[in-house]
C-alpha cells in the first residue's frame, strides 16, 4: 500500500494557533501544509487582505506538475453591529476551508452551506 492510499489529512486548526501568527507566518503555514497535500479547516479564517495575499503567493508558487493552486472556501466576515462599529470592534473572519486544488473541489456554496468534494489519490497521509 502506498502512502497516498492511506488517506487524506484533514486538519482542524484552532483559532488560538491562527491568532498566534502574524499574516506572513499564517500564509507560510497554510501554503506549506497545502503543498504537502493537506486540507485545513481554519476555525478562524483569513482577513480579505490575507486572502488576497494568499492568492498572490499561491500564483508565485504554482508548479505545473506538482502544485496547481489552492481551493479556498469560507464566508465573508461577520458584519458589525452599530455599537460594534461605534466602539471600533474588529470584524472577525469566519471558518475557512483550504486545500490543494487538485484534491479539493467546491461543489456548491450558498449562504448556509459549503459543499465540497475530496478527490482521493493525491493527498498526504
Amino acid at each position, binding site marked *: 500500500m502506498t502512502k497516498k492510499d492511506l488517506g487524506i489529512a484533514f486538519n482542524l486548526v484552532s483559532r488560538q494557533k491562527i491568532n498566534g501568527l502574524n499574516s506572513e507566518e499564517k500564509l507560510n503555514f497554510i501554503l506549506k501544509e497545502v503543498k504537502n497535500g493537506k486540507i485545513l479547516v481554519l476555525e478562524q479564517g483569513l482577513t480579505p*487582505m490575507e486572502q488576497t495575499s494568499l492568492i498572490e503567493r499561491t500564483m508565485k508558487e504554482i508548479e505545473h506538475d506538482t502544485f496547481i*493552486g489552492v481551493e479556498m472556501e469560507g464566508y465573508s466576515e461577520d458584519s458589525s453591529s452599530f455599537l460594534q462599529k461605534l466602539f471600533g470592534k474588529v470584524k472577525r473572519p469566519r471558518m475557512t476551508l483550504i486545500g490543494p486544488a487538485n484534491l479539493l473541489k467546491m461543489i456548491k456554496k450558498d449562504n448556509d452551506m459549503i459543499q465540497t468534494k475530496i478527490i482521493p489519490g493525491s493527498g498526504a497521509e
Partner: protein
Amino acid sequence: MGIFRRGRLSVILQKIFGKKHAKIGIYGPPNVGKTTLANRILRDWTGDIMGSVSEIPHETRRAKWKKDVRVENGSSSLLMDIVDTPGISTKVDFKEFMNTWGLTKEEAKKRAKEATEGVIESIKWLEDIDGVLLVMDATQDPFTQVNVTILGNLEARNLPVLIAANKIDMEDSSPATLKSAFPQHPVVPISALTGYNSDTLYSTMIKHFGKKRKKKWR
C-alpha cells in the same frame, strides 16, 4: 488670490462636488466577460476596443488600460481611466487548457505561466485604483471565493464597487440571485455582448464612482 489658482480651485471643487476623474478597474474571475465589457465601454465612448476575447479562460494575461474615457449621462459625466485586468483565480492548471481547449502541452504551459503572472498583476493594481467594476457571470454561483475575496478586499479599502451581472442574454442567467447575494453593493444586470442595459450601467457608474470618498490606506 491664491485659492483661485487653477490646481487649487479644481481640488476645492472636487471636494465639494465629488470626483470628476477616476481610475476604474474591471475585475472578476476568468471568463466572466471583463474584456467584452471593456470593449463595449470603449466602443461606446471612444470608438476603440481594449483587447481580444476568447472562450478559453485567461485570454487577458496582462492588464490593459485606456486613459481619459469620458462617460456621459445627460448633464453629468465622469472622466475615467479604464483598467481591464486579468481574471483572478486561486488555481491555474495547464492540463485544463490541453484537455478542455485542445492546446498543445507547450502552449498550455505558457498560457498557465502567463495566467499566474496576470493574477499577480491584477492584485497589484488594487493599490492604484479608485473604484472597481466587478464583473460576475449571472449564470453562475455568485458565492465564489474570488468574488468574496475581491469584495472583502475592496470593502476593507473603502473603495466603491459596482457589480455588473453579466451574460443576462443567456437563458439560465439569474441577476436576482446576484442582487440578493450582495445587497450591500449596487448590481446592474447587463449583457456586455449585446449592449443590453448599458445605459443604466453608465449612469450608475457616473453616480457611484463620482462620489467623494475617503480611501483607506493599508
